[in-house]
């Protein structure tokens, strides 16, 4: 469990980082932020990057900004930054609630929000958050800057639309309506384990009915996504057990479940049914 040899680059500015990344990307150069996923994978030699571009000393990447519409999260913002609310909006409380479910405390003090999105583990809470809230990913390289919508960003298990030479410099999350409700639930075997299924929901109430529902499911398919069928089962319905069960059932029936040696597709559907309903129940508290 010793990583294969690699060269570590420690740029101080974003320009420098992007230049180095452009140079080393063809030789399997990778960005190192918190290292909570990459380093264990390297220790197992499942990844053997020849170069690491360590962005931990790059200036200005640790900022969280907010213009009243969008929350901007920089590349080096750690999970722990969300332990308390970062914005006076329901989004702040949502991020705080979700952050508590990420792994264990020491990991949260080191791992980064953007690193989690770049790594794109199907079970990632932040990937689920980005997919559910229609985040925009800002990728930068020496070639320029581009914005990638969440629906275009996730391409599969640990696979994204980021090019080899692109750094995920920022993630933009739209602020929620002031009266928005949210709920989150995830299932794991032990406290702090990877979620075997997770759900994040947001909606508002208009005239006693659910409106603008977002129902995201993570950990169940190769990538997290919004489940349109579940949202349709909610919109225009009164919040409550009947609508929540219908949405949960819709989500469970439309997903194409991941299977592995510990998990059958049938069981994954059971979990999706449970986490969606529970996320919706939580949203009422």
């Amino acid at each position, binding site marked *: 469990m010793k990583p294969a040899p690699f060269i570590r680059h420690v740029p101080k500015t974003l320009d420098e980082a992007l230049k180095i990344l452009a140079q080393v990307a063809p030789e399997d150069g990778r960005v190192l932020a918190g290292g909570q996923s990459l380093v264990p994978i390297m220790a197992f*030699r499942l990844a053997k990057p020849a170069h690491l571009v360590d962005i931990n000393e790059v200036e200005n990447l640790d900022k969280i900004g907010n213009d009243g519409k969008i929350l901007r999260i920089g590349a080096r913002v750690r999970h722990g930054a969300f332990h308390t609310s970062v914005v006076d909006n329901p989004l702040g409380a949502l991020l705080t609630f979700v952050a508590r479910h990420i792994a264990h405390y020491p990991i949260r003090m080191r791992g980064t929000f953007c690193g989690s999105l770049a790594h794109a583990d199907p079970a990632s809470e932040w990937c689920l958050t980005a997919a559910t809230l229609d985040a925009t990913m800002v990728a930068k390289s020496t070639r320029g800057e581009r914005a990638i919508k969440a629906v275009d960003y996730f391409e599969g298990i640990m696979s994204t639309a980021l090019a080899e030479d692109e750094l995920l410099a920022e993630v933009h999350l739209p602020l929620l309506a002031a009266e928005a409700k949210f709920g989150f639930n995830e299932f794991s*075997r*032990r406290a*702090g384990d990877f979620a075997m299924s997770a759900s994040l929901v947001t909606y508002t109430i208009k005239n006693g009915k659910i409106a603008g529902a977002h129902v995201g499911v993570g950990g169940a398919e190769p990538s997290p996504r919004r489940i349109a069928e579940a949202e349709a089962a909610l919109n225009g319905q009164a919040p409550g057990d009947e609508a929540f069960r219908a949405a949960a059932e819709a989500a469970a029936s439309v997903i194409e479940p991941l299977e592995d040696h510990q998990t059958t597709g049938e069981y994954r559907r*059971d*979990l999706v049914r*449970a986490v969606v309903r529970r996320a919706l129940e939580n949203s009422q508290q």
Partner: protein
Amino acid sequence: MTAHTKGTGLKWVGRAMRRVEDPALVQGQGKFTADLPAAHWVRFVRSPNAAGRIIGINKPDGALVITAADLTGVKKITPMLHKFAYRAVAQPILAENVVRYVGEAVAAVVAASEEEAEDIADLVELDIEQTAPVIDSRDALADGAPQIHAIAPGNVILEGKHKTPGFDEVWASAAKIITLDARSNRQNATPMEARAGHAVFDAVSGRVTLTCTTQMPHLMRTAIADVLGMRESDLRVIAPDVGGGFGQKMSLCAEYVVLVWLARKLKSSVAWTEDRRENLIASFHSRDQYIKLEAAFDKDAKLLALHADVISNVGAYSCFPTTSGVEPLMAMAEMPGPYDVQQYQCRARGVLTNTCTMAAYRGVSRPIITFTLERLMDKAANAFGIDAIDIRRRNLIDTFPYTSAMGLVYDEATYQQTLEMAVKAIDVPAFRARQTAARAQGRYLGLGIATFSERTGYGSPAFAARGMEITPGWETVILTVDPSGFVEARIGSSPHGQGLRTTLAQIIADEIGVTPDIIKIIHGDTDTSPYGWGTFASRSLVISGGATLIAAQKVRAKLIKIASHLLEASPDDIVLADGAATVAGTDRSITIGKMAREAYTQTHKFKGEIEPGMTESGTYDPPGTFSNACHVAIVEVDIETGQTKIEKFLVAEDAGKIINPMIADGQVIGGIAQGIGNALLEEIIYDEHGVPTTATLADYMPPTAREMPPIELHHIETMSTQSITKAKGLGEGGCIGAPAAIVNAINDALSPFGAALDEIPATPQRVRAALRTALSSPLWEGEKSNP
């Protein structure tokens, strides 16, 4: 410490004295094998295939890579049993011609650092022509299954059979036959410290010192010297601080043989530290069994006869010294458990497969047989329409000594009393009321009971009954009071977390009237401790403790003799206490330090009537004694996800005299933690090609602190005549009873649905599958429509 006891007459035995081991460990001052520097580091290249022929091994240019071809004259590890149609399967130190499981060591890369060794190992190319593997033991028994070893046709390495003479007649008279098919999936003992070894050659003496993380240093020395054909005196084995063993570290690892061979070849120091992946796939596994158990009852639910068929998957090779008989033969010997049943038929087979070799793991088969038998008793209670507590009351042993259907003699214990104590403490009626109320809200609580016997502290006759070529059992302790009055005990046991340095000091302190802080226990080094069998099988406090007491009694006798000489009093009037000998009723007194000094430096005073010095030795080889306990688990099952939360765990146990209550409780709680892993979480899973898919601690899941429930412990102390300290062993009970109690509780929680689960671990997925099976049954008329 002295201030606490001086003049009070208080004993040290029975007190929750703090462990003398802990200050160093909690301050990071422990000394572990991997802390040692070495000139050379080894990385093993392991087979990626479960079965195949080795066509070639391509070594990178200039690298030092050792393969089987280099190990000329090195014998194979060939454990032996002289009974049960045992087939003497031999294990080459590095794979020779064929590979038999994923993880088998094929080559050893030697380099200047661990990192470099791993880099080079990446470049070693194994050319293996794959052959069809067999992973499941039932597949291995099928006609036409691939044969793992030519010497073991049909892949059966041993077969134990037992049938009591009156079995058929009693079986035919039964009012009811209850059948249970139990499955226990494969586990890894998962010590916090994985394996590690460090061998260094000494040019002056020509000796090699092997430091390794072992539970039995003396036997490692004997075994490695045998395999390498070297003089045992040319090898010294040291077990430094060892970070948990749980049985995994009592077997001989081929890797340590390679290290000693390399140290002699290179005339240098060579080290290897296993990583977690290696530990999970290639150390030793356990608990992979199928048991079919049938029980005959009379009309009053009294157990008449048991019929068991045990299939134990022993992996690719046989472990040394216990052999792969360790699980199947333990299952056969102790299947009747704590119940009075005189008719018994059993067949227990060890079956070879293309999987990692099985070895002892805390509890050895008893977590599985207890799970099987206790599930069966609950099932029988249901069939008779009586309570789970009642059926146990009707069947638990209550007269002693009791001779089992296998001929084992159970010494006095408290099977009935611990059951009553536990059910009273848990308050069953209050729980049932709560359970009913919860069900009305769609929450499913369950209560499960497990009663069991825990055979501990058994000496050589018990091992001889298995026909073992290597028959462990006795222990020797050499106790010295040095000329300054300090006490040293050299022991053959090899504690690695059990707190034996504390508990043995408590025994010695009481016997010779000193405080524990002047007593040092020396262990874990073949140069400085007497030959012994190490620490395993809940034996050390009983056997090494007994030997300690015998040695201490001899020292006591000598001190009294010296005191009687020096104080000119009758030996009958000498009182040993508070570090001195005193003539009863007088102020005439002499310290133990002064007497010890005289015993070495003033021997002329004793006119040849007392031997010089102050060293005595004690050896103890007891028949064995049975501890016992009743475990109760209260769980809540989330029927939507299948997740089980243990709300409370309660133990009423009897391990005879408790030398140190804090250490005893620690043993029970630690065992329960592993039992929870066994019951709910931990499982080694192979895919259809024989590749382990649980090679990290994210996939193989021991419980964490967050999964531990509140645990309530109650004790009864039955003074056994089968142990001279009156102490019984208790190292394994926690993990023996917990799986049965927890899974019985899960089944109780699922009872409204008619769902049943007889497999461990009872994972959430398995719970959901059981519910799904039950709900799809047309016979089910449950109370809830959408679980």
